[in-house]
Each structure stands twice: as C-alpha cells, then as structure tokens.
C-alpha cells in the first residue's frame, strides 16, 4: 500500500484541476461525479492504508518520499508523505467526512452558478488538508496548512458578489496568517534546534533540546495552532467565516481544517512535553476559549453563528486536552466532534436550504413537523454536542474533563480548568437546546417577523411551503448521525497511544457528573424556552440581564477592541507613513529639498552668467590664474 499513499492528496488535486479547468464545459453532473469520485478514491486508499497500519505492530508507518522540494546548503525539505496511526486516523476522518460533505453538496449547491468552482475549491481543500495530515515534515505540512487557509478564504468568499463575504474571507486569511507567522518562526526555530524538519527527527531530538528553546518553539507553534484552530486571541475569524456555503462551514470550519492546530500539537507531542510551560498556556487558553465562546453562543440569532461559536468552544476542549499532554484524547474529541459538528452544520444547512437561505433563528420555529428527518438527525447531533450519555460527545468530552480533573502523565490535575470545562459543558448543553427549541419547537415565526434580520434572503416563507431536503443531502446526515451515536465507543486514545494510562480513579464518577450536567443543561434550556419564555424576557429586560445579553450578543466587544487597538492604528500609521514619511520627509524635504538646493545654487550661479562674453572671458582668466597659481604653489611647495 505504501506505494500508493501519494494518491491520497493527489486524487482530490486532480479533481481540482479537472473541475477547475474544464468544469465549466463538463456540466454540473460530471463535475459532481468527478468531485465525489476523487474524494471517494482518496477515502478508499486511506482505508486501505489505515488497515495496513492498524493490522501491523504499533509504531509502524507507511512512508513515501518524492525528492526535494526546497534545498539550500544543508537545509533540505522533501516531498515526503507518511501514514502512521495518527495521520491514518486523521486521513480517515478527513476523507470520510469530506466524502459525505461532497455528496451533500451535490444537492445543496444545485443550481448555483459557481457549481464547478465550488467543487474545484472543495477538492483543492481536500488535497491541501490531506497534504497537511500526511506530510512527514513540518514544512510540507505548512504547505497544506497554507493551502487549507487559501481554500477557506476562497470558500468563505465563494459568493463573491457580496463584499461582506469577501471581507470575511480576507479576515480569515489574515488572522490565519498571523498565526502562520508564528508557525513559520517556530519552523525556523525547530531547524535551528534540530537541524531537520522531519517529524521523526524532531520527535527524536525533542528530549535534547534545551528547555528555553523548546519553550519558544512550542509557543510559536502554538500561535500557529491558535490561528488555524480559532483560539483566543485569534478566534475572531471563525464566526465570520460562516459567510461561506454551509457545507464549507461543516467541512472546513467544523470538521477538519480548524482541528489541524490540534493535529499539529499531537504530531509534535514529545516536543511539547519538553515544554511544560507552553502546555500550561495551551490548557489555559483552551479552557478560556471554551468558556468565552460558549458564553457568546448563548445569544446568537444566526443558526450558523451558534454552531460556529460552539465549534470554537469545542476546539477549546481539544486544546485543554492537548495542554494536559493527552494528545490522543484531544484527537479523540477531534474525531467525534467532526462527526457531530458536521452533522449539526449539515442539518443546519438542510434547514437553511428548506427555508430558502433563511439563517435567522428568530424567523424559524416549529419546524419539527415539517422537517421530521432533519429534526431527528439534528437532535442526535445536538445530544452528541451536549454530551448526552452514551453519545459520541459524551465519551470524548468527559475523557477530557476527567483528565483535567485527575491529571495525566506528569501533568498535575488542574481543577480550575476542570471546573471551567464543566461549566462550559453545562452552557453547551444549554445553548444547543436553546437553538433546537428556537428552530424546531414552538410556533413558526418565518412569516410574522419580516424585519427580524436585514440579511435574511427569504421574505415571509409560509410554513406549508417548507419542504424536506433531497435524498442526496439526507444520506450523509444519516451516516453522520450513526457515527455521532457510536463514535464514542471507538478506543481512539488507546489506538494512538498504545501504552496510554488514563487514571482510573473517579472515571465513573466523572462520567456520571458529565451526564448529569448535560441533562441538566438540556432540561434547563427546554424548560426555559418552551415553558417560561416570559420569565426569560423578564430577566433580559432587567439591568444585569441586559448587560449580560449585550456583552454576549456583541461578542464581548472583541472585534471592536481589535478594530480600535490594532486595525485602526495600523491604518492610521499607514496614512501617516505615506503622507508624512514618504511624501513629506523623503520626497519633499529630502529629494525636492536637495533639488531645490541645487536649483537655488543654479540661480546664484546664473547671476554670473549674464550672457556677456567679457564676463566669461574674465572668469576664464580667473580660472587660468588660479590653475597657474596652484600649479606653481604645488611645484614650489
């Protein structure tokens, strides 16, 4: 199998080339087939490679090298791919979920003018993501890393006629780039410390790196991870990224790309283990992000924004796990999260599709009767996200909380972070079911509140016109729902880290507490939103309620703060630089100043040139006398 792993990223890439270059002529059907088939092929090869890795002894891997990509002096980067247990799992998730989302997109994007373009971008994304996952060195990973960023940019701004979409795309790309700079510097630092870019070499070298170097390397890499995985302070792009088509949000901004930061940490686990200080930072930022995003998710009205903040929040959990050194647990949550969050997004997509691109939850409600399939599937996703017992999210999230509570390996328990995590779990269950209550329960408000949202595309769609989405969109949902229910039973941590020792103490009690928290959140949300909406309104109109609501709905003013503290100053500096430094100081004062000086001198000299020959002759004589005198003086002296 190891001869064929290069096809994993290459097939989607070929799909991208064919769709991108010829898509317009091929027609939608052929484009869809090529798009899905290329990913299906990659999936098949991933499965085959994974089986081979799975069957073999631990620590085996498939590797393939295609020669140098960058070479300068003793620095060398190769096109090398590797499939080991970690990248195998990631490949499966990426290609598997990716395939489902491709299938879903054939229905969702039907009739869009940019159909072929969409599939081309999606395929390019798959290719980049797979390069990111299968790369055997960090620079090649960076190629994939930037590639997915690019595709994210392209897909967020997919409907490019809306400038807001494009700006969201640019925001995503730029914020990612800030992280990427950290990543890049981390890469340089790695080379300085290890003399190699290969993961195997870095990991082998990790224990020998001195601690301060390790600290800086890991911190820089973590900055990169923060950018891609939307952690504080670089999470602001992800909610805006919801401007893209919903399958994109599902694939890129929930299931795969945003988890690559976690993957990076897992890949370089031993290196991070050598930098416990960074791990503390990682865990803290993870927990804080989880809490902050959950708080913001509370008051969002856009169905996708809620999911977006919940993604940020769940990513926070993953970093919390990674910060505890339990990378395999983090990856476990990556996998389950990919299942249920893709399910939720696609379900939301189905709702949006049925409502003709209405995204405002204030204009939904009571949809469970009109969209029974979607409701059922969405409910499964919501349960999994809330950590309802025995769903996928229950196991992975509680494993994280358990580790935070009991410690892992050398890392001490962090009870503060654990309590934050538990609180977040409660909030998660609450806002998830707030959403479900708003969308599927109650009465339909689509026709009655026309001015609820300015961006809403649909204008008063009648409830009886709301139809269930086509089969091509439903099947992926069913598969994902099945995975969301059963994914928790996969023993991913044990597979990835065969010798993993998760403390047994309190494991059961942890599970019970988690379950209770989840059920409590769900129950609270349903009770408040379905039974006592008046009480909620009353609370919101009270002073503290208003403040809380405003803080939450304005996202704690983080965007505004960034705008004021970073973006405005940069713009002002740019203006100042241009008008003052470039125009005034350099150009006018220095350049024109010198030219003015020259011309002033010229005017002065011009006085000497009055046009009279005798004057010239006189100067001529003066010059001659001078030369003569100087010569004589030189000869005599």
């Amino acid at each position, binding site marked *: 199998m190891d001869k064929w792993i290069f096809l994993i990223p290459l097939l989607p890439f070929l799909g991208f080339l064919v769709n991108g270059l010829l898509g317009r002529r091929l027609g939608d059907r052929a484009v869809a087939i090529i798009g899905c088939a290329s990913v299906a092929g990659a999936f098949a090869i991933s499965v085959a490679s994974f089986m081979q890795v799975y069957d073999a002894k631990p620590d085996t891997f498939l590797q393939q090298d295609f020669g140098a990509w960058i070479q300068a002096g003793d620095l060398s980067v190769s096109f090398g791919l590797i499939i080991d247990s970690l990248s195998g799992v990631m490949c499966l998730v990426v290609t598997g979920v990716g395939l489902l989302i491709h299938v879903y997109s054939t229905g969702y994007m039907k009739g869009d003018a940019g159909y072929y373009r969409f599939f081309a971008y999606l395929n390019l994304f798959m290719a980049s993501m797979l390069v990111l996952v299968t790369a055997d060195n960090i620079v090649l990973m960076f190629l994939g890393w930037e590639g997915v960023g690019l595709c994210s940019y392209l897909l967020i701004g997919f409907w490019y006629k809306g400038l807001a979409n494009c700006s969201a795309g640019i925001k995503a790309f730029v914020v990612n780039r800030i992280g990427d700079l950290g990543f890049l510097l981390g890469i340089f630092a790695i080379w300085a410390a290890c003399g190699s870019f290969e993961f195997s070499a870095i990991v082998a070298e990790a224990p020998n790196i001195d601690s301060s170097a390790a600290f800086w390397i890991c911190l820089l890499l973590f900055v990169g991870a923060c950018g891609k995985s939307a952690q504080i302070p670089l999470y602001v792009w992800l909610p805006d990224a919801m401007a893209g088509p919903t399958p994109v949000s599902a694939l890129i901004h929930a299931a795969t790309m945003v988890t690559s930061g976690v993957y990076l940490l897992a890949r370089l686990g031993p290196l991070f283990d050598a930098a416990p200080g960074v791990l503390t930072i990682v865990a803290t930022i993870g927990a804080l992000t989880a809490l902050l995003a959950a708080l913001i998710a509370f008051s969002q009205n856009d169905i996708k924004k809620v999911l977006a903040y919940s993604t940020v929040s769940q990513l926070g959990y993953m970093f919390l796990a990674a910060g505890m050194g339990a990378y395999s647990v983090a990856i476990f949550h990556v996998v389950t999260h990919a299942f249920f969050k893709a399910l939720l997004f696609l379900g939301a997509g189905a709702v949006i599709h049925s409502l003709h691109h209405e995204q405002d939850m204030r204009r939904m409600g009571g949809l469970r009767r009109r969209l029974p399939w979607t409701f059922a599937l969405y409910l499964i996703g919501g349960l999994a996200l809330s950590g309802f017992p025995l769903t996928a999210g229950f196991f992975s999230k509680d494993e994280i909380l358990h580790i935070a509570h009991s410690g892992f390996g050398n890392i001490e328990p962090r009870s503060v972070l654990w309590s934050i995590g538990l609180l977040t779990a409660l909030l998660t269950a609450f806002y998830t079911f707030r959403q479900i209550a708003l969308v599927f329960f109650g009465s339909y408000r689509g026709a009655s509140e026309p001015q609820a949202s300015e961006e809403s595309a649909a204008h008063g769609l009648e409830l009886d016109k709301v139809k269930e989405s086509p089969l091509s969109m439903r099947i992926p949902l069913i598969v994902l729902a099945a995975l969301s229910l059963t994914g928790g039973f996969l023993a991913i941590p044990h597979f990835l880290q065969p010798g993993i020792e998760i403390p047994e103490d309190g494991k059961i009690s942890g599970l019970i507490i988690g379950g209770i928290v989840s059920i409590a959140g769900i129950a609270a949300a349903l009770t408040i939103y379905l039974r006592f909406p008046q009480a909620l309104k009353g609370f919101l109109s009270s002073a503290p309620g208003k403040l809380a609501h405003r803080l939450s709905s304005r996202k704690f003013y983080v965007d505004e703060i960034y705008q004021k503290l970073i973006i405005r100053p940069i713009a002002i500096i740019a203006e100042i630089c241009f008008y003052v430094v470039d125009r005034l100081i350099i150009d006018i004062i220095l350049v024109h100043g010198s030219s003015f000086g020259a011309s002033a001198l010229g005017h002065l000299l011009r006085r000497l040139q009055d046009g009279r020959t005798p004057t010239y002759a*006189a100067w001529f*004589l003066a010059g001659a006398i001078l030369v003569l005198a100087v010569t004589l003086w030189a*000869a005599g002296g």
Partner: protein
Amino acid sequence: MDALVFLISGVLMTASALLVVTRKNPVYSAILLVVFFLLTSLNFLVLRSPFLAVIQVLVYGGAIMVLFVFVLMLLNLTEEELDEKVEPGRKLLAGAGSVLLFVLLAWAINSSDRIQAAGETDLTGPVKESVARAGETREIGKALFSEHILPFEFTSILIFIAIIGAIYLTKTRRADHRRTAEPAVKQPEESA
C-alpha cells in the same frame, strides 16, 4: 649684438602692444599692430627663424592686417560708436588681472630650473648642423611635407572651412536687408 637688437625691439614691441590695446580709435590700433608685427618679425630673425620672419610679415603684417583694416572701413564706426564707455572698475580689474598673470608667468619662468639652465649646449657633428639649419626654408619644407604632413593637411582643411564659414557669415541675405532697414532695432535686452 643679438641681445641688444632683441632688447630694443622687445621694448618697442611692448610699447606698441600697450598702445594697441589702449588707443580709442581702432585705426590707430591697427597701425600700431602692424608695427608690432614687424618688430616681432625682427625678433624671429634674431631667434634664427628667417622663414618665419618672412611669413610673419606676409601673413600678419599683410593678410591679417588688411582684413582688419578692411573691416574697419566696412563698419566705418562713428565717433559715438567708438566711445567704449567702459567702467573704470572694469579696466582696473582687467589691469590687475593681467598684471597678476604676468607676475605669475614671470615667477614660473624665473623658478624653472630648466629654463634658467637652457642655453647654448655644446653641440657637435650633425646635430649641430641640423640645429643650425632648423629655421631654413628647405628644412621646414622637408619637415612639413614628410613628418608633419597630416597636421599640415588638417590645417589646410581648417582654413578651407574657415573660408566657407566667413563667406557664409558675411553673405547678405534678404531677411537681413529688411531687418536692417527697420528703424527700430530689436534691443538685445529684450531678447535676453
């Protein structure tokens, strides 16, 4: 004997030169210039250059002076036109400049060892012969048409061009006639 002739003619040359540049009427200057040229020719003879002495009289005293006089006649400047109205300051400056120049040149001459040491070297044999005959017409002719033929030809071309130029410049054109006929002469000030 040589020295005596040279000194007398030298003093006269200086005097006539001074008069040339100081006379108000250019006709006097021209006549004094002829005197100057003749004296120069005499000094050429003293310096063993008989051919050049002849040429000097022919070319300078003859051709060039005729040109000057001819032009003077053509212009026939009036008394008013001859009044130069030179500011005294300018004259003073020019005088000072030229005196300074002379002083520097004299200093240069005086301080040069080679010039002071130059004189009758004891020459023998053919060299002495050739040096003695250097100023003769035959020798000059030989040198001119063998060794120095190229510059000689160039000079002739130059003179040829000068003739063409002179003819072109002095040819009266109709436009000039018209312009000269106009009473209001375009002031140089305006054109500046």
